[in-house]
């Protein structure tokens, strides 16, 4: 066994870290070593059933209880929704899970994603917390959430709230007495394909309207009559992240299941976009950290003219570029997380400014990661595409991180719109 430097050599802003995040990070590192990494090479074939993927989630979310972290302490949670270290702690958790499997990292992250709307300051919805906390805190079984945004006619349009203001949303929420009646069809949410227990559904209360007050984010327990989930799609990678269709046919929920209320749903929707981008950077970092480990093994074991491959100058150039990419992307990611945490310094994380910054950070990070991983695969020649080396799996997965959340072009538009004050994009 060759002794090499481990993944902790890469820079993190030590002044940002939180004891809770570090402690949970260590627990997750141990969990991925024992419960995920030994089995992940079979995940691709497990994309429909999750026979291998669900048991480790049961341990992490249910038995360790991490699924309860956002809820207030008096409701059985850990109160992280009140913390201004939420994002930094989340970043650490995400990168640790993504080191093993970024599909699991996104499935994990999305458990909390819609809950941000009701658990985090300054828009805690106490009544909904009380309603849903028992789902997550009263069981050792894993509980999954999802945020249903994309529709058949276009994902990026739904997420393009600033310009389209919800006018293209076709999933409707109609008030009927003290209930919402929801009808529509959503595609692609993480944790669908039969996984989710609770959904937050992006709807319109007035189809075609450009009034932000008509955008409603409504929580829907998945066992409600009229909710149908299709099977998981087959994708290039990320088998642990099940995506499928959801149909809503006259689904009824109480009026108070609306997350934040008229105007605020649209406003705080920006927050989930910011956090989704922040998390995506963590996934990219986690993936690259694991590839660093794999690459260490490869360039130490393989030889070139009697010396380890890493001692060749040309190879060293590629290795240096890869290390530099991890360094830079990790710093960017932690800065993004800190920006989302310290709203007192940077402003609210739902504003177009923070959304634009987070999108810029994310697409830059994902582009660099993908490029760097592609070069590592080339360096490994015929072993690069070999699943036994794990690098190709990460390469397939990280491509999805680059493409989701409306795709790169939407990110570019939002970034240009804010930094250059474009008015018609």
């Amino acid at each position, binding site marked *: 066994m060759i002794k090499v430097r481990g993944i902790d050599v890469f820079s993190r802003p030590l002044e940002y870290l939180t004891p809770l995040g570090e402690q949970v990070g260590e627990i997750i590192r141990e969990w991925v070593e024992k419960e995920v990494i030994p089995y992940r090479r079979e995940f691709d074939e497990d994309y429909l059933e999750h026979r291998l993927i669900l048991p480790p989630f049961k341990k992490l979310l249910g038995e360790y209880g991490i699924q309860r972290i956002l809820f207030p302490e008096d409701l059985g949670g850990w109160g992280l929704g009140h913390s201004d270290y939420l994002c930094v702690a989340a970043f650490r958790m995400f990168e640790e899970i993504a080191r093993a499997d970024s599909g699991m990292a996104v499935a994990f992250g999305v458990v909390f994603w819609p809950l941000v709307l009701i658990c985090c300051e300054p828009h805690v919805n106490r009544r909904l917390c009380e309603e849903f906390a028992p789902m997550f805190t009263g069981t050792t079984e894993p509980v999954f959430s999802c945020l249903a945004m994309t529709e058949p006619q276009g994902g990026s*349009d739904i997420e393009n709230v600033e310009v389209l203001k919800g006018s293209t949303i076709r999933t409707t929420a109609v008030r009927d007495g003290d209930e919402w009646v929801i009808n529509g069809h959503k595609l692609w949410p993480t944790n669908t394909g039969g996984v989710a227990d609770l959904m937050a559904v992006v709807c319109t209360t007035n189809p075609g309207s450009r009034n932000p007050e008509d955008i409603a984010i409504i929580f829907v327990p998945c066992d409600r009559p009229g909710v149908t989930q299709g099977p998981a799609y087959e994708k290039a990678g990320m088998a642990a992240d099940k995506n499928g269709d959801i149909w809503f046919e006259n689904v009824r929920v109480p009026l108070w299941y609306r997350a934040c209320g008229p105007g605020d749903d649209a406003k705080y929707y920006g927050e989930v976009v910011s956090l989704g981008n922040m998390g995506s950077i963590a996934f990219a970092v986690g993936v690259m950290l694991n590839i660093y480990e794999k690459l260490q093994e490869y360039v130490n074991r393989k030889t070139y003219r009697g010396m380890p491959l890493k001692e060749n100058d*040309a190879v060293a150039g590629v290795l240096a570029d890869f290390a530099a990419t991890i360094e830079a992307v990790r710093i960017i990611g932690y800065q993004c997380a800190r920006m989302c945490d310290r709203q007192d310094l940077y402003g609210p994380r739902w504003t177009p400014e923070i959304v634009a910054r987070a999108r810029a950070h994310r697409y830059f990070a994902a582009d660099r990661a993908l490029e760097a991983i592609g070069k590592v695969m080339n360096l490994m020649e015929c*072993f690069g595409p070999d699943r*036994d080396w794990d690098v190709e799996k990460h390469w397939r997965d990280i491509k999805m991180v680059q493409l989701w959340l409306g795709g790169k072009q939407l990110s570019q538009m939002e970034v240009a719109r804010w930094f250059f004050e474009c008015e018609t994009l």
Partner: protein
Amino acid sequence: MNDLELFPYPKNRLQKTDLDLAASLQNLVQKEIVDKRLELKEDYEGLLKPNLRKLLVEIGLQRMFWPESLGGEEHNGPEAAYTVAAALEQVGRADTGLAYLAAHNLALQAALAMRENLDTEACARFAPLFCDGRGPVIVSFLLPVFGEDGKAPTWRGKSFQVKARAASGSWILDGRGVRPTCSGVDADLFGAWCAVENEEQPAFILVPGDASGLSRGPEFKKTGLAASRNADLDLSGVQVPLENCLFRGETEYRRLLSWLYLGISATAVGGLLAAYQILKEWGDNRVIKGTGNVFKENPLTGALMGEIAQDISMARLLAYDLAGMLADPPSFGDAGSDGVFTAALMIVHQVLATAERAIHRTMELMASAGYAKEWQLERYWRDLKTVQCYVGSHELAKHDFARWFYGARTL
């Protein structure tokens, strides 16, 4: 106009038979592969294997170069380079893996049966296997790799995977954990570029798939190329006749590789043409920013689509440039010369890098549809990345370029 004709290539240099072959392949692969793959996906037995037979045996790609007297088509002049390019880009459009396998088969034929370098004895020994109509001949190569466990002898910085020695009228071959360029599970013939014991000159030796002492490991999982079910091999005292050594010289070896790189370049162009057709459908029908804004009419996405078309055009021109070089030895030199080999290596790397970039961008434009298997794009992305890795490290290839252009001697 056929939409594939939008992308420039030197049509004037192709013979009518090349164009006819390309047209019939285009129809065949559309009907037999493209139209069926939504249902059959990448099923080896159901989709890929039957079509490999159709291409190699029924269409006759595996008979192309061999002398007529041995049952071949004797299309074995250097101008066959255009035929290879025209045929494989059509096959690659339907399935990159099938084209990649065909490229191996054609490269071996070119190495043995090219009119100017016809190896009569080798043709007599091996042509019947390709021409008897019994089944497709899957050809795989065992080439040196970059970085090896231990201290294997090297060729141009790459470590030989197989060692050979002559003994008692035979070649004896050994190698453990040998990674073939394709089809370790299924190949009928392995062409091994071997280090020879106590000799400086390597040898290219053909090993039948059923040779005693050759054992195949289990199929390993990989990123793409479902048509190439690959496995590592162990060669333990594999004994083959001395005549199975097809050549000892680097010129012949480089010639083989130059033709292989042509086939692979055309394969990649085929993948790009497929990506174009998928994106065309997306760009024509997708509406963004509310109703009425067709995707291709948006200035940003339209520009990116334009850039992708530019990439495809340049890749196709480069692939046909390589065909042109191989087709005209009096002007450019033999396919096995250092200059042509270096150009072939540069072109295959450039075409594959261009393909990687263009398909990456196509996926970006299509967002989640880009990585959903239903849209069929992501398979080209996985396949071509796999091909790129199998062609070899760009870092070492750059040393070859430096050797040729700058006279570097010790790289």
